């Protein structure tokens, strides 16, 4: 008797657990809705940048829905995005992509943030043959396997510093040497290798070429080396927090170069807030800047997007935000051109994308990565300006020495 009652109790618990797990996502499913799935970092290490994508995707979704949705044939569909928190963890993220496809039955996928999480997710997308357009990972590794279902809206790494180096080589007196430091992530490594080649072609000597750990906060040793080598410019391929540390520690150790430039950081509002006046004159590279002006699909043009965005979220959008808008713009155009919600047809339409967005013209290479270029930014008077090629302001070079600033 006793054993029997235990059995029944055990089974009851099991049943409840199952009910909880299975019943969690059987919410009402309205017709005429295209469902997108997105596992983004709401918590954990990547959650700060994750938020940029979330904000942008929501804004773009509302804008599409307000202006009549996406047309498939004669019917128009509203857009709905199902978000999950991947806790900045790749195994969690891949599991959630599974859930989005199998349980939530989403039509299409939007990518997560950072290359390390994008790759496992793209493998799941490929297994189910559902396209994923991502704007949060630029590593060549994502596209190295020629996975036909992944498309990225951040440009390839090798050419990232080209515009910066061209600008640098054009200054008078002509700079002679540069120092290059880079994170040990695939993206940063390719940025640095590409930059080294370009610099040497332009007649700039690379006096320091050193790798740093992705999460490292200590730049003292490298900066001491830079100080004794005294190059004209210091270029870094890394992340925002690394950029803040680099500038702070360069000032602490009184390391004066004529130019500091970095890939990620200067375009973000947090970077300027954290460094205050010390952020002045720092150069940045980006695939996009708010001063550009492109016509768009979802928003009328870049200016309007920036205005609406600032009004809603109270911070300046940067290229992460714009790249997220491009994700949905690509889908809107591809779905309308395909005239269908069939994943295979939409995938083929995405591959043939050739559109104007507020993020700039979007066209994909055969491997799925966007054909793109980069512009040079500089922080002047607490604002980020595009300074090259043809910008709203002229680049300030050389930057004043730390001790000579007011």
């Amino acid at each position: 008797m006793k054993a029997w009652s235990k059995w029944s109790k055990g089974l009851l618990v099991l049943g409840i657990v199952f009910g909880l797990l299975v019943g969690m996502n059987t919410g009402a499913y309205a017709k005429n809705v295209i469902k997108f799935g997105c596992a983004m970092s709401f918590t954990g290490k990547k959650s700060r940048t994750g938020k940029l994508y979330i904000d942008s995707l929501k804004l773009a979704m509302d804008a599409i829905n307000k202006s009549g949705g996406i047309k498939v044939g004669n019917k128009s569909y509203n857009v709905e995005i199902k978000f999950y928190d991947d806790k900045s963890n790749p195994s969690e993220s891949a599991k959630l992509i599974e859930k989005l496809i199998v349980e939530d039955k989403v039509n299409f996928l939007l990518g997560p943030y950072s290359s390390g999480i994008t790759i496992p997710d793209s493998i799941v997308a490929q297994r189910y043959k559902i396209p994923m357009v991502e704007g949060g990972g630029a590593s060549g590794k994502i596209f190295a396997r020629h996975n036909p279902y992944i498309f990225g809206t951040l440009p390839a790494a090798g050419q990232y510093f080209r515009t910066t180096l061209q600008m640098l080589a054009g200054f008078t007196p002509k700079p002679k040497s540069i120092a290059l430091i880079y994170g040990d992530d695939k993206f940063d490594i390719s940025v640095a290798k590409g930059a080294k080649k370009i610099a040497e072609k332009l007649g700039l000597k690379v006096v320091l070429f050193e790798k740093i750990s992705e999460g490292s906060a200590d730049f003292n040793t490298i900066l001491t080396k830079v100080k004794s080598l005294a190059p004209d410019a210091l270029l870094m391929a890394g992340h925002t927090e690394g950029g803040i540390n680099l500038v702070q520690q360069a000032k602490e150790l009184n390391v004066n170069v004529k130019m500091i430039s970095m890939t990620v950081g200067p375009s973000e509002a947090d970077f300027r807030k954290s460094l205050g006046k010390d952020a002045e004159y720092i150069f940045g590279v980006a695939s996009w800047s708010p001063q550009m002006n492109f016509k768009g699909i979802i928003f009328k043009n870049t200016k309007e997007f920036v205005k609406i965005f600032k009004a809603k979220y109270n911070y300046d959008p940067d290229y992460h935000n714009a790249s997220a808008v491009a994700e949905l713009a690509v889908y809107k155009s591809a779905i309308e051109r395909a005239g269908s919600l069939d994943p295979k047809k939409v995938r083929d339409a995405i591959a043939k994308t050739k559109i104007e967005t507020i993020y700039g013209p979007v066209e994909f290479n055969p491997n799925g990565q966007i054909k793109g270029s980069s512009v040079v930014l500089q922080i002047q008077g607490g604002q980020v300006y595009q300074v090259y090629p043809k910008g709203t302001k002229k680049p300030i070079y050389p930057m004043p020495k730390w001790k000579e600033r007011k």
Partner: protein
Amino acid sequence: MILQIIVNGILKGGLYALMALGMSLIWGVMDIINIAHGAFIMLGAYCSYWLFTLWGVDPFISLFLSIFFMFLVGYAIQKYLINLVIRATIFITLILAFGIEIFLNNLALVMWTADVRKVQVPYGAANFNIGTVTIPYVRLSAFIIALVIAGIFYIVLNKTRTGRSIRATAQDLDAARLVGVDVAKTYALTFGMGVGAAGAAGTLWAILFPINPMMGGILTLKSFVVVIIGGLGTMFGPIIGGLTLGVAEALGSNWFGATYENLISFTILVLVLIFLPRGILGKRE
């Protein structure tokens, strides 16, 4: 150049020492490995950040507020939480500390978002030169504060009544109770002091580095290394441990490259444990 690198290492060692002091005290007295230590440093950093951002309180003044506030937090956590399980196996306190860590980290995330922040004071990166060597003021003061706190801990432990009860409790809990020591209160005081020191580290951290709710994890790990290298049971262990680690990392990343920093510090940790299990200053068996 090599001289500058060694000086960098020493100053970084001061920061490490400051970080690890509180952990060492708590570990030495109560045999608790405080996994939540980094989370307390994070709270101390936010404490100074908000005082500075909202009311413009200079971080070197909010340092004392941060220490005081974190002391209260630590006292309360020990009194109402850790004291409840302190006599269970070591896993229990370990995991309780882990629970506290994820609770605090995520509370901070929910309240303040993951935005990167920094206390931006004009003197944050000010420096002076001795010969060709550049020394930043804030890092130097971190070093001095570490020495002062170690000194205060030393005096409290060795010259005061409270200190005697702390030491008695650390040596023999039951005997201490027999002679009338209020063990629960002694533990709470010790934990409060340790967490207060973490608060000081947090304030300095917020001037020098960008902060966010998830910053604590790596700081806890580095504090382990510092405590182990220096050795438990003396307040100057963390200073020696911090300096050793700081200089080793600076020289190591100079010779091998910057990506080897963590490999160097954790290899040192394992080697010290194997060959000098009681640390450099620890008492031999």
